[in-house]
């Protein structure tokens, strides 16, 4: 199609992104006049829902924000409230948290890599059209997801929604012999994961290398960050969760109900698998690190289209780590720390599959929540998504409408945006003047 400076492209529904929102790009020739990634429903309703509730309810209520990463919400909520109460859960509790969190990474990443992102690379419009031709690839994804699900099911109490998690630890410690049952499925899944990395690395990637500031946790225990750590960045940030507001600000913008996050005085940043990987990759297990080298990203990964490779490396790591945690498992006794309500403010941050998830709670002396604040990874990445779109469209304006639209959708899916953490539904519009 000729680029006569008068084109309009609109796509009403962008599939394969969790939640609802919309994307809008306006072009004159190859000049991008506007690129917006819009989000309609912020988690503010959940923050309001938490006000006045007992502090013990926070993990259960926030778990309902997302159908894909409830464990992440529970973990950040627990951390923040424990911080307020001055409680430090015992080592075995922390290990069990890391284990259930591995299950969520497995589920979420497998869903994204295979069902949501792979169809873009292989030229299918959905996982089920892809399944008709590549059933074995989809089955591999489903097997990986299932293992993550079983892990959450077992440690969390039930798969529906992990009810065993509480502030201070767990309601019940899982028995060692029950965890042992997962060993075989996890080992088999690890074989699949090696295959997944090879598959992801074999895809072809559009070019895009923005100059991101990567922001991820970095843990003082030397491990790849999942359930704890300080907030670190490639630009030299190194702070505790309590300093989140000193470093980041949330800004209201007209076109979105979600707040845009940025680094004060600097601008956008990137949270999520690529940020974790680039800031912590030397901390991966030897097997995962070797797989990263073989996949060609051993020295880092700056192309967001290659995030599918990074996710596949994190799948492999989560399996390795889950097996290691099961080997070393000691049932926490008691399964949860004692809690003594105090009037205080607490901050918690953990690595959701999509990146940094920050919670802040103000508690009353009688153990209630006076105020809650939740900053999900997708709203932190919102500015980076818009900048990617701008850069990508500017560099690829010669593409026809269909191809450009498809690539824009793919570029958004690089972020695995979980918009229901901040909202519901996604529509896409590209407009050319």
């Amino acid at each position, binding site marked *: 199609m000729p680029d006569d400076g008068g084109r309009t492209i609109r796509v009403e529904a962008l599939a394969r992104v969790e939640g609802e929102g919309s994307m809008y790009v306006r072009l004159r020739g190859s000049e991008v006049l506007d690129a917006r990634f819009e989000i309609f429903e912020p988690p503010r309703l959940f923050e309001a829902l938490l006000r006045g509730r007992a502090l013990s309810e926070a993990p259960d209520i926030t778990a309902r924000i997302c159908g894909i990463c409830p464990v992440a919400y529970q973990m950040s909520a627990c951390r923040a409230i424990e911080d307020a109460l001055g409680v430090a859960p015992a080592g075995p509790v922390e290990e069990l948290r890391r284990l259930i969190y591995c299950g969520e990474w497995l589920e979420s990443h497998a869903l994204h890599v295979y069902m949501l992102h792979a169809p873009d690379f292989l030229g299918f419009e959905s996982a089920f059209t892809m399944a008709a031709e590549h059933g074995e690839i989809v089955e591999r994804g489903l097997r990986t997801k*299932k293992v993550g699900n079983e892990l959450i099911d077992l440690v969390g109490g039930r*798969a*529906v929604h992990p009810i065993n998690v509480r502030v201070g630890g767990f309601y019940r410690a899982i028995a060692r012999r029950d965890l042992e049952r997962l060993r075989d499925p996890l080992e088999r899944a690890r074989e699949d994961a090696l295959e997944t990395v090879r598959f992801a690395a074999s895809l072809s990637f559009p070019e895009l290398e923005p100059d991101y500031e990567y922001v991820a946790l970095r843990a003082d225990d030397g491990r790849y960050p999942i359930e704890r750590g300080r907030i670190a960045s490639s630009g030299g940030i190194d702070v505790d969760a309590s300093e989140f507001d000193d470093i980041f600000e949330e800004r209201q913008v007209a076109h979105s109900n979600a707040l845009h996050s940025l680094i004060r005085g600097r601008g956008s940043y990137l949270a999520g698998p690529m940020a974790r990987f680039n800031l912590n990759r030397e901390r991966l297990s030897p097997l995962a690190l070797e797989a990263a080298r073989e996949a060609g990203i051993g020295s880092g990964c700056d192309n967001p289209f290659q995030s599918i490779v990074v996710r596949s490396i994190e799948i492999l790591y989560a399996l390795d780590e889950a097996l290691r945690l099961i080997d070393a498992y000691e049932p926490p006794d008691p399964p949860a720390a004692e809690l003594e309500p105090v009037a205080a403010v607490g901050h918690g941050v953990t690595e959701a599959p999509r990146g940094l998830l920050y919670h802040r709670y103000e508690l009353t002396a009688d153990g209630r929540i006076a105020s809650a604040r939740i900053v999900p990874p997708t709203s932190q990445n919102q500015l980076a998504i818009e900048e990617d779109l701008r850069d990508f469209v500017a560099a690829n304006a010669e593409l026809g409408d269909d191809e450009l639209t498809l690539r824009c959708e793919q570029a958004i899916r690089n972020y695995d945006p979980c918009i229901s953490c901040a909202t519901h539904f996604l529509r896409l519009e590209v407009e050319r003047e």
Partner: protein
Amino acid sequence: VSAGAAGGGALVIGLGNPVRGDDRAGLEVARRVRERAPDAVRAIEVEREPSGLIDAWEGARLAIVVDAAAAASRPGAVHRLDASSRPLPPGLRPASTHALGLAETIELARALGRLPERLLVYAIEGERFEAGAAISPAVEAAIDGVVERVLADVGA
């Protein structure tokens, strides 16, 4: 969602989010079916995204999924659909926030040859889905009727 949860019999699956108003409808139906006929039918509530259903209904003779849907005609309207041999109609798209929606999950299972022998879907039209909303009176009024129909479907 555990593999083979159906154990060769009938499985009732309620989908939804309990704190998002009418999105609770499917969960309520599953819970009440379980209370009414605990021995005759297995009923589970699923709050997580639905692609795990492909494992859950493995081996089931009959699976019945109950989910809330965006309002298409009037809140509380109930649609009973047989998904065994054809996709859910495009006009009735369940109002879930899940990445792989119920309709896509069903088609994925069909493509992989992993549908249960028979698959029924009840879609209950809702009117409010925002966080913190209560279930609407129209949807509440529809729930017990769906429970009866589900029990009749499974022969309980």
